[in-house]
């Protein structure tokens, strides 16, 4: 193993994980209705292949896609498609077209769902295709299609599959619960993914604050007797589970700025994704459900739930004993990077690892925050896991100075929120940087549009010129023909 080098800084946070983690995973009874957002969190949607009124069974394909960043969707329960319409969803922008399926209470399974006879006999390419067809996507929070990542890993000949069981964000513990209860699935999925990625070794990384998960995974690895499959216990520090930071902790190599982990020879997958792959391999079941943490002071009994994708969050919260006190924010994800949702009618997405119902007890300090001027204390720089100077970036962001933003590395910001968390002036830095990135994107898009328009204009002018030249040449041809002595009927008549 390479010499250990750490990513810059980071911070040990209050994890708040004990709230949900004490009890076994709750299997949610099938909800009456599911709301499947075509965009499952990546910003790219699939295309519906069913119409309103269609009867579907468990595992029926309801939306397909060729886009590398979107994933196919399958009906997680048997019933009827009752609506395909734009609804509130847990995605950027807050709305997505959703397929709404009303369950009929039966457990009919689609005929296409059959156990994969021998996953080991499939080539890496076939494996990736089958995983894409099964709609398997990153369950760690990004929802990125697994097959697309596998393809980029094979293109770059990544040698290491890094299975992310760090789960560093406060409040979230669904991966912990899964590793404790289904470590063999995690390991089986890891081996399939290792082959599909063309990697030679697999490292499962778990933070040292999860001793039970570490013990379970150690046992599962022991049962496999595979020298190229190891466990790495890593320090519990936020944001240890961020892809780039994890790569550095485990391999000692940094992911190049603007590059992918595969450029450092590593492909990262979440432990829950591996477990979903194992589920697919043993039963043929596409991705129909996931484990999600339901927690926060705003729910009665925080717990981890296995629930069908598309389950309305209200049903998840009901399964956790319902609301308690005065819930102020419904957050998809943890306290540091989670997205606050407008309503509890949105459906569970593949990317959603946590439903955090926050009350004043949880987020009171943020609610009472008063922004003061930056005093250049540098606390933000001392915790930034990307080695940035957030205070300088903030000045550049306020001035909308695009060159300075780029030089200071706003693109290298991983949006972990730590600068914001420690800022004594309570400046919403993370949001300012998100905004700055968006403005950079817009400026790039505008510049691209202008360049396109200029090129179009130039080509247009060239075509006009060519047409004029051609016309002129044709005219000249005619004139030459007209003037030619032999052809001229009047010629020689004189």
């Amino acid at each position, binding site marked *: 193993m390479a010499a250990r080098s750490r990513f*810059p800084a980071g911070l040990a946070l209050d994890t708040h994980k004990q709230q949900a983690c004490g009890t076994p995973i709750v299997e949610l009874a099938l909800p009456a209705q599911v709301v499947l957002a075509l965009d499952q969190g990546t910003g790219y949607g699939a295309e519906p292949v069913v119409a309103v009124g269609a009867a579907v069974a468990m595992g029926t394909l309801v939306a397909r896609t060729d886009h590398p960043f979107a994933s196919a969707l399958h009906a997680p329960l048997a019933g009827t498609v009752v609506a395909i319409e734009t609804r509130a969803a847990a995605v950027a922008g*807050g709305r997505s077209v959703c397929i709404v399926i009303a369950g009929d209470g039966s457990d009919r399974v689609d005929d296409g769902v059959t156990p994969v006879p021998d996953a080991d006999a499939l080539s890496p390419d076939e494996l990736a295709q089958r995983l894409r067809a099964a709609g398997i996507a990153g369950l760690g929070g990004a929802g990125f299609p697994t097959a697309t990542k596998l393809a980029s890993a094979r293109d770059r000949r990544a040698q290491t599959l890094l299975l992310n069981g760090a789960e560093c964000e406060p409040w979230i513990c669904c991966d912990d619960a899964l590793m404790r209860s289904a470590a063999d699935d995690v390991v089986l999925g890891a081996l399939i993914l290792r082959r599909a990625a063309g990697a030679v070794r697999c490292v499962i990384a778990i933070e040292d604050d999860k001793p039970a998960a570490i013990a379970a995974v150690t046992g599962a690895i022991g049962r496999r007797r595979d020298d190229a499959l190891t466990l790495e216990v890593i320090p519990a520090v936020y944001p240890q589970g961020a892809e*780039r930071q994890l790569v*550095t902790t485990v391999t000692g190599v*940094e*992911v*190049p*700025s*603007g590059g992918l982990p595969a450029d450092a020879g590593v492909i990262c997958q979440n432990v829950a994704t591996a477990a979903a792959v194992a589920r697919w391999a043993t039963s043929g079941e596409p991705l129909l459900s996931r484990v999600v943490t339901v927690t926060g002071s705003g729910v009665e009994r925080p717990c981890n739930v296995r629930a069908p994708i598309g389950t309305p969050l*209200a049903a998840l919260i009901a399964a956790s004993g319902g*609301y308690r006190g005065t*819930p*102020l*924010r*419904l*957050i998809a*994800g943890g*306290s*540091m990077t*989670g997205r*606050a*949702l*407008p*309503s*509890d009618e949105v459906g569970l997405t593949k990317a959603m690892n946590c439903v*955090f119902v926050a009350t004043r007890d*949880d*987020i009171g*300090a*943020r609610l009472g*925050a008063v922004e*003061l*001027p*930056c*005093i*250049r*204390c*540098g606390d933000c*720089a*001392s915790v930034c*896991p*990307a*080695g940035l*100077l957030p*205070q*300088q970036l903030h000045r550049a962001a306020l001035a909308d100075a695009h060159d300075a933003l780029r030089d200071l*590395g706003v693109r*290298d910001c991983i*949006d972990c*929120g730590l600068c*914001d*968390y*420690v*800022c*004594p002036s*309570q400046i*919403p830095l*993370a*949001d300012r940087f*998100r905004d700055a990135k968006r403005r950079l994107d817009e400026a790039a898009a505008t510049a691209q549009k202008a360049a396109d328009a200029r090129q179009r204009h130039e080509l247009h002018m060239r075509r006009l010129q060519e047409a004029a030249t051609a016309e002129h040449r044709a005219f000249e041809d005619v004139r030459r023909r007209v003037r030619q002595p032999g052809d001229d009927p009047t010629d020689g008549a004189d």
Partner: protein
Amino acid sequence: MRFDTSPAPHVIAGYTVPRVMFQVLLALAPAGIAHVALFGPGLLLQLSVACVTALLAEAAALRWRGRDAAPALRDGSVLVTAFLLAFSIPPLLPWWLGALGTALAVLLGKHVFGGLGQNPFNPAMVGYAILLVAFPAEMTRWPVPMDVDGTRTWSELARMSFAGFCGADLAARWDGYTGATALDSIRNGLGLRYTLPELLARGDIAGTFGARGFAWINLAALAGGLYLVSRRIVRWHIPVAVLGGLLVPSFIAHGLDPGIALGPTLQAFSGATMLTAFFIATDPVSAATSDRGRLWYGAGIGLIAWIIRTWGGYPDGCAFAVLLMNLAVPFIDRYTVPRIYGRQP
């Protein structure tokens, strides 16, 4: 149910600017106690006039600038400026000079640049430097500390401090009770061709480990400073670099010529050394930003202070060292940007 959709992160550490500032004031308490015990209650008089003036000047400046004064008065930063200035000036200073220095610190040092977070110079040092240049006699007259002469009582110091504060002519009644600071006396002595061991042997300049009076203030400021470092309110880079920049050259020079060069212990425990290292140079607004930049910045302050103490026209030089390095901050920041993760050095 509907919910509000504010952006992440949804939690903050809650360690706010006012809390930071009040921790700094708290950490000054040991040095304040030592100061009052050794030099009389003049510090308390100076503190009160500085705090009142600072708050008034801050409120007036914000009013003139059309800003809301309430949050700025509550953030505590102007009180830190007032405290640092009051600790730097002699406890005998007439009240109007303390008030003038504070008003200049807040107005010229801070608000002409745009207020909190915008000032390139340490405001307290701006006020101090102006007073020192404009009123050199008043600014170098200190009470003879309690640990020099056991026959003087604290109540005498108290009466003298009050007289000085009110602007009475101290030479008339209190001659012999006032004098130059230890660093000043050493400077003058060396100028009269005494050797350093001769001067130290007199006993009225230096005690067991540092300058009379100031040794204990420095020790107490060191304790307060270490508290700030332990609470991570101040990071270690600047204090360590300031002390390194001052003590390493003095160690070498003292080794080369113990007859005239002050040794590192005397340098560390005299004048404003510890106050500068832990409280003044560490003002984040006017300091360099990166860890590496802060090492250069602190080392520059220590080195310049040593140069001024050794060859300059002023006995201490910490204030000028800080102001000069404040000037260098944009330059230091430009060349000490840390390497971003995933980028080539």
